[in-house]
């Protein structure tokens, strides 16, 4: 029985990493209607900002955390201004946005490799003790608990902003229809910047937490493929959907490895994904499905 709970904890912990990444995707998707593949690059830069704040500048974890989150937020806004905004002004097709996003993502990865930082793997200094909590034969890592709490708090704050503030109302309106909101006097340009800023902020948090849990290297962004799939699974554009999709994907993966065979992990997880999309194309909790890329 303890093996079952251990695998459940493993799954939750993997799922919560996916969730933090998937929410950023979903947020941008809900407004812009395109998959922001540059998100992985922003996560990676966030991880590096956190890493260098703690090693080169010897800052405490909390300061590094803020730098990573705000730094990544600023980067995401800059990416929007440089790579997407000109396309938006020209009403370019969605495909162009996706290609531009991929370009940004490849650019970010290679700029790190080419810079003095290089392709080496980096390790965060230990902030949390490696000794796990042991509850009834189940080991729960301290970092996992912290990650889970930080993810939950950031998501709660995000939901609060979207549901309870004036800006949040603008975001919801823009998600419904960008054009109609603009006609109604919502400053959609500002809304888009805020959404990218918040997406980047979450990416920065995801980056520093991911870096602490695993390691920092220029290809971190690749892991976002999984969280992108989790976001589709949960329903693109829906924040609760992104969270639920991520946690479910994490648990499905873990249980496949744990009880069937680790070779079949991705196979089963993705067959299930295709099945759900065929039966329920908008994902578990998705909103609109037409003309999205």
């Amino acid at each position: 029985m303890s093996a079952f709970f251990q695998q459940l904890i493993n799954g939750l912990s993997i799922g919560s990493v996916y969730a933090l990444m998937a929410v950023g995707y979903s947020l941008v998707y809900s407004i812009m209607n395109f998959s922001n593949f540059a998100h992985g690059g922003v996560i990676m830069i966030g991880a590096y900002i956190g890493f260098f704040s703690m090693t080169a500048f010897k800052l405490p974890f909390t300061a590094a955390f803020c730098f990573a989150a705000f730094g990544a937020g600023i980067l995401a806004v800059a990416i929007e201004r440089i790579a997407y905004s000109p396309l938006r002004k020209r009403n370019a097709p969605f495909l162009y946005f996706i290609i531009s996003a991929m370009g940004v993502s490849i650019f970010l990865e290679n700029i790190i490799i080419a810079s003095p930082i290089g392709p080496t793997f980096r390790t965060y200094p230990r902030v949390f003790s490696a000794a796990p909590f042991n509850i009834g034969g189940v080991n729960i890592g301290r970092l996992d608990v912290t990650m889970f709490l930080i993810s939950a708090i950031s998501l709660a704050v995000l939901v609060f902003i979207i549901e309870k503030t004036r800006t949040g109302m603008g975001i919801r309106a823009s998600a419904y229809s960008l054009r109609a909101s603009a006609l109604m006097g919502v400053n959609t340009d500002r809304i888009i910047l805020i959404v990218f800023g918040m997406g980047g902020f979450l990416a920065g948090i995801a980056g520093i937490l991911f870096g602490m849990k695993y390691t920092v290297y220029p290809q971190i962004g690749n892991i976002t493929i999984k969280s992108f799939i989790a976001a589709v699974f949960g329903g693109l554009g829906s924040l609760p959907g992104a969270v639920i999709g991520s946690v479910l994907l994490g648990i499905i993966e873990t249980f496949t490895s744990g009880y069937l065979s680790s070779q079949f992990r991705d196979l089963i997880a993705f067959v299930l994904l295709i099945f759900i999309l065929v039966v329920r194309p908008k994902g578990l909790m998705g909103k609109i499905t037409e003309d999205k890329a």
Partner: protein
Amino acid sequence: MKKRVVLLALATLLTLSLTLAGCSKPADTPAESKEPEVVKVGWIGSLTGDQAVWGTCELNTVKMLFEDINKNGGLLGKQIEVVGYDTRGDATEAVNAVKRLTSQDKVVAVIGPNASGQAISISAVLEEMKVPDIATVATNPKVTVVDGKTKPFNFRVCFIDPYQGAVAAGYAYDVLGFKKAAILYDVADDYSQGLTEFFEKYFVEKGGEIVAKEAFKFGDVDFRPQLSKIKNAGPEVIFMPYFFKEVALSANQARELGINAVLMGGDGWPSEVLLEMAKDAIEGSYFVNHLDFDDPDVQEFKAAYKAKYNLPVELNGYLAYDAVQLLVDAIKRANSFDPVAIRDALETAQVKGITGQINISKDTHNPEGKDAAIIKIVDGQYVFQQKYSAK
């Protein structure tokens, strides 16, 4: 106004390029009529992507060695130019790179790549263009021999996977006395599969038991589901035949789950980064390596590299060093830069490399009877245990 500036700039550029082209023309013609003064040697490997750390080290080493040779009068009176191309860790890219090296750059030989997947795929081009290749750390048997047939233009300076798997299994069973082993391996990787296959084969043949065999896929960062399963099987030793990033992550996670078994691995382990990432988790672990890093033979190179690049030498650097030694020896004995003559000379090469005596066998194009080094991690240091050969 803006347009005019652009036009002006363009005009200047055109004039400049014309002058330059005009200048370079006469210099080129005599060189083409005679034999070229500069001979090119190719290198391929990963300069970007996950394996960039090793590729960069190899290319640095190869460049450094030929710079030294050039300073000392060159080889057979010629200066050597190293042309390196990035394979991005991809087999198709490797084929393209070799095509470019052989047809466009006209290299006399190719050094690299470091990974078997790429080394296996380039054979057809090498045979077509009749240019020899010396792989560095490509340990899969199929790099030089497929279905009992030796590939005419592929050579290597490292020992092969079956040997490495057998050494690990032999050492674990005979020397360390372990009877129950678990294996965690990368299902998407030839190298990892090769080592796993032969570790399993030899360990079971000796009388040991494989209690769990779990897989992951390249790019994974979380191994706890597999490790939780391994933990329940209760092995004494866990064989981890993959590269140091995954080793560091999986070792840390194993300890986090309360697994105390001894960890063992192959030549994908040694790296400064591994110690930095998982110092405590891999304490007391063993791995099979190509050489002992503290061997007096390698110190001179290690220091020279550090002085030039201010980076530690990765394992690949040492084998790239020996690949260059082997090539230089073959060129000298062939007394020619003809790629086929170099190939013929390589078949009978006997060179004392820094990673050991390299006697290339005509039948396998592998260095035969090269001892493996068993390294243990003690107090965060790589401590050489003994030379060990499987038979």
